[in-house]
């Protein structure tokens, strides 16, 4: 088998595993990077119980603050922090210091 095919086969297996995993799968960890005054993309397939690690790569202090107040994480320049998702639904997140920085999380049960 050529190397390219092996990679494709592995990727296919991983995708199949991801699709097949039930909603009650073990909590996973997702990372959201903050850089240049922007939140990185929201991870897909979030569930209640998942942990989100926020990595602030900026030289500025930010926060990850949920509009519903379910979490409010202070993120000093260059620091990281984590929150566990406790509620299902659409969670609007913003930086409380720079409210133009926004992100929407879709959290399933």
């Amino acid at each position, binding site marked *: 088998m050529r190397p390219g095919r092996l990679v494709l086969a592995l990727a296919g297996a991983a995708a199949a595993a991801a699709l097949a995993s039930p909603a009650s799968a073990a909590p996973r960890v997702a990372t959201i990077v903050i850089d240049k005054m922007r939140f990185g993309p929201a991870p897909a397939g979030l569930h209640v119980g998942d942990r989100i690690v926020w990595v602030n790569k900026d030289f500025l*202090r930010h926060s990850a603050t949920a509009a519903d107040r379910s979490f409010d994480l202070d993120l000093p320049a260059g620091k990281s922090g984590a929150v566990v998702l406790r509620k299902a639904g659409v969670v609007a997140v913003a930086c409380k*210091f720079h409210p133009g920085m926004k992100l929407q999380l879709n959290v399933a049960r």
Partner: protein
Amino acid sequence: MRILLLGAAAFAIAAPAAAAPSDPQIAHIAYTAGQIDVAAGKQALARSHDKRVRAFAQEMVRDHQAVNEKALALVKKLGVTPQANPTSAALSKGAAAKLKELGRLKGAAFDRAYIANEVAYHRTVNGALRGTLIPSASNGELKALLETGLTLFTEHQKHAEHVAAELR
């Protein structure tokens, strides 16, 4: 007088100069503009008792100091020496007059004047970044820092406008 000075500074940075500013000049202008807002924020923290004004001023001091530290580290890394120029001089002159003028005000009058100036100042600086400084910057890292600065200062401008509306 203050409007004339601010106007002169705005014109100096916004006008298409005969020659576009060099990176050492851009670094000097950006750093000076940041220092001015840090000084204004410190004055507000010494004079204002309004929670919203103080929170805004703390944000200005924190963010502009952070940008300037980053800018200093960058020019050091690039081996660039910031170069004084008429635009920086006009900005400093206007800011000194403004500090003096605001220093004579107290209470709600100070709060309103400080925030009104912050709205105008960020509008001027953001216009200069967008129209002159970012397009003129030749070093990629300097340009990227100025672009992040513009995003940040646009947030500051919105925040200042929000506080100004609340104080009205």
